[in-house]
C-alpha cells in the first residue's frame, strides 16, 4: 500500500522528476538537492508520517550520464504504507546530503553505501568504511569492480606462494 501522492507532488512539483507505481509500490525520483527537504516533509507531515526507515541502497549504471542512483525506502507505522525515493548522482560529483539527522538509523546504511559504492554523504557524523578495511581500495559493488578483486589479497605477506 502507498500514500496518496497528489499533495506530495503538488508541494514538490519542481523537484520531483518522475513518479512510478508498479507491483503496488510507489517510487518518486527527485533532484538530489531537494532530497533532504522532501525527507523532512515525509517524516514530519502527519499525512505522511514515514517514521520508520527501511533501507538505503544504491545502484550503478556505468553507461548513464548520472551514473549512480540512490534508493531510499521508508515505512509509515501509523498509516501502514511504504514509499521509495530515488535520486541520481554523477560520478564527477559523487556526493549527496546525509539524512541521518532525520532518521538515526540512516547512519549505518549510508556508511554501507559509501563503503560499497563510493558515494560520500555530506554532513554525515562518521563517514568511514564499515565492511571493508580502512585501507581497501575501490568500491566492490560498482559494476566495473572485478569479481576476483583487485589483487589486494596477494599483498598479504603470510600467504604462501609469494
Amino acid at each position: 500500500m502507498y500514500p496518496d501522492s497528489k499533495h506530495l507532488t503538488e508541494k514538490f512539483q519542481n523537484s520531483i522528476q518522475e513518479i512510478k507505481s508498479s507491483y503496488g509500490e510507489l517510487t518518486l525520483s527527485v533532484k538530489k538537492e531537494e532530497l533532504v527537504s522532501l525527507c523532512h516533509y515525509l517524516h514530519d507531515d502527519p499525512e505522511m508520517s514515514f517514521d520508520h526507515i527501511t533501507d538505503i541502497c544504491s545502484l550503478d549504471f556505468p553507461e548513464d550520464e548520472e551514473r549512480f542512483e540512490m534508493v531510499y525506502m521508508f515505512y509509515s507505522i501509523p498509516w501502514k504504507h511504504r514509499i521509495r525515493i530515488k535520486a541520481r548522482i554523477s560520478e564527477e560529483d559523487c556526493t549527496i546530503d546525509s539524512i541521518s539527522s532525520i532518521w538515526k538509523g540512516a547512519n549505518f546504511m549510508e556508511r554501507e553505501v559509501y563503503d560499497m559504492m563510493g558515494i560520500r554523504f555530506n554532513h554525515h557524523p562518521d563517514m568511514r568504511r564499515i565492511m571493508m578495511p580502512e585501507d581497501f581500495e575501490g568500491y566492490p559493488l560498482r559494476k566495473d569492480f572485478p569479481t576476483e578483486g583487485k589483487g589486494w589479497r596477494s599483498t598479504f605477506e603470510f600467504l604462501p606462494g609469494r
Partner: protein
Amino acid sequence: MAGIKGDNVTKEVAIGGQHIETPHETRPVLRREEFLLNMGPQHPSTHGVLRVVLDLEGERIVKATPDLGYLHRGVEKLAELETYNQIIPLTDRLDYVCSMTNNYAFVRSVEKLLELQIPERAEYIRTLVAEMMRISGHLFWLGTQALDIGAMTVFFFTFREREEILDMFEELCGARLTMTYYRIGGLDRDLTEGIIARLKKFIKEFPKKIKEYNTLIQNNRIWISRTRDVAVISGKDAVNFGLTGPSLRGSGVNYDIRKDEPYGVYDRLDWEVPLGQNGDTYDRYWIRILEMVQSARMIEQILDKLPSGPILADHPMVVLPKKDLVMSDMESLIHHFLVASKGFDAPKGEVYCGTEVPKGELGFYIYSTGGNRPYRLKIRPPSFIHMGAFDYMARGYMISDIITIFGTYDIVMGECDR
C-alpha cells in the same frame, strides 16, 4: 610546589628522591583517565565475529563503536552473477541459525517480481515451516543469551527442543543447518505423515517445556537484575533507528509484517502480536517467549486446516520438475537441467519485499533489467540495522552489560556482514 596527578596525597611522597610538601587536606589518590578496550572479534559471546571498541570510564561505557565486516563475503556482489534459483542457497548462509526464513524472504521477493501464484497447500506448509523456524530461532536465542549471562541449564533445556525441531527438518529436507527448502513457486518436498505426527506430539508438549524455561529464569534474581532495565530504548527511538522484530515490539511498537502486510496464510489464522512496555532486555525475553506460544498456536491451526494439492506452482519455465520424473524421464531431465543451469528470464522492474523473520524484518530489494539474474540485489538484514543502534543503547551501562546488550538483538554476524 606544583602538584602531581592525583593531587592532595595523604602522606609525604617522594618522587625521584625529591621531597614533596604534603598539602593540608587529606584525600585518597584517584587516577582519572578513559580506558579503551577491544572486545572481540574472537570473544566467545560475540556471536561469531563482532568487534566492539569500548571507551570506558572505570567500568562504565562512554562509547561503544562496533567494528563490522569480519564475516563479509560479498553476497550481494555474488548474487549479481547467479541465476535466481542459484541465489537460494546463498541466502541460507546469511542467518545460518534460521536459514529457512531467509529462503522464504528471498523466494517471496522473486515471486513478487514474477507475479507468481503459489498453490494453497504450499502456502500452508511455508507458513508452518516458518513458524517452526521461529520457535527454533527463539529457543536458540534464549539458550545462548542465558548462557552468555551465566545460566547454563536453560541452554541445555532449550537445545533439547531445538534438536527435536532440527530432526524434523532433517526428515523434511535432509539438512539441519543450511536447508534450501523453499523454491521459487513452492517447496522442495511435501510434508510426510511421520513429520505431521511428530509435530503434533511436539506442539502438545511444548507449553510444558516453555513453563520449564520460565521456572528457571522468570523469577531468578540474577537473570532479572542482569536483564531488567538493560539496553532500554524507547518506542520512538527504536522506530527512528529502524529496529524491527522483538527488538522493536519490546518497546511497545505494534509493527509485525505478518499482521500489517500479511503473506502466506497468516491472515487466515487466529493469533496475536505480543508487545512489551519498558523496551528492556527482560521485556524482549517475554516477547520471544510469547511469540513461541503464538507460533505453536499457529502450527496447531495449520495442521488442522492443511489442504491437499500440489506444492509447486504450475509454471514450467520457473519451477523444477518433480524429482522422481527427473530420474526416470528424459524430457524432465532436460527440463530440470535448463531451469537449474540457465534459469528463467524475469521481467524488467524493481520490487522490495519484507518478511518477518525471528530477528525482525528481512527484506530483499531486487532491481531487474530482464534476464536470468538480478542487476542488483540489496539485502535488508535486521541484525545490521540493529547494530546501528548499538552505541546508543550501550552508553552509560557497565562493561558486564555489553554481552546482554548485543545478545538482546539476537544478532547473527553472517547476516550482519553478508
